[in-house]
């Protein structure tokens, strides 16, 4: 069994959103890649940066407005507290099936060898510093650096 046995050798996952469902999708894909012996790297840009900001990462929400899959009428979805309620319910369900909270999930990704990068342009735009980020984030890099890291056969780039 060799690391490059399968066709996909490396997943480069870009996370640009901060809603819980998108963040978890990205995390599960990165973790799943490592579990299969595939290399994985994550690039956090725009709102995706919320998932690695130490002050914000445990306070991410699911969207109750503009999200038809929630089956909540738009007017009701906007009522204060609705998003928190939906988020709490979702987190409870996730815990039951062993999906860890965001910080613990980042720890798992880090320990599993997923390389974590933050987007320089978005960091500048939101006036963020490296110290504001989860400690496992290796570096703030440019889009050019990101493509450089994606070099090689069998690399797939996924934008979320």
């Amino acid at each position, binding site marked *: *069994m*060799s*690391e490059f046995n399968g066709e996909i050798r490396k997943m480069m996952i870009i996370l640009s959103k901060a809603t819980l469902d998108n963040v978890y999708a990205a995390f*599960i894909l990165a*973790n*799943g890649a*490592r*579990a*299969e*012996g595939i290399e994985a790297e994550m690039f956090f840009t725009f709102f995706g940066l919320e998932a690695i900001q130490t002050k914000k990462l445990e306070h991410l929400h699911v969207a109750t407005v503009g999200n038809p899959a929630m089956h909540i009428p738009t007017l009701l979805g906007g009522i204060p507290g609705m998003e928190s309620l939906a988020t709490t319910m979702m987190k409870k369900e996730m815990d039951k*099936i*062993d*999906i*860890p909270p965001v910080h*613990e999930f980042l*720890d*798992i990704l880090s*320990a*599993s*060898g997923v390389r974590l990068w933050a987007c320089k342009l978005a960091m500048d735009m939101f006036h963020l510093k490296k110290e504001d980020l989860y400690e496992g984030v290796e570096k703030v890099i440019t889009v050019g650096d990101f493509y450089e890291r994606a070099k090689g056969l069998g690399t797939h780039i996924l934008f979320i």
Partner: protein
Amino acid sequence: MSQTRMIAGKEIKVNDEGYLTDYNQWDKQVAETLANEARIELTPKHWQVLEWLQEQQRKEVALNIRKVGASGVVDIKEFYSLFPVGPLKTATKIAGIPKPASCI
């Protein structure tokens, strides 16, 4: 589908992916052979992890990486260094238990 193959001089029942389908056929020689095929040399630490995995299987615990991390036997980083390529898949195969069907 179940088929048999020779592992450590014995006819062993395996599935399409090479996982044992009859745990009673597992023994340490089988584990050594499967580990060798995965290019892993089993150390006492590996054995400890394999025993823990088998114990979970006996208790019918659905395995995933989070549970391995909370096992107290090995942390996730070490688990990846012991079984570098697809650790849970590889370790369960060597342990003679089914491949976990988890996305975590």
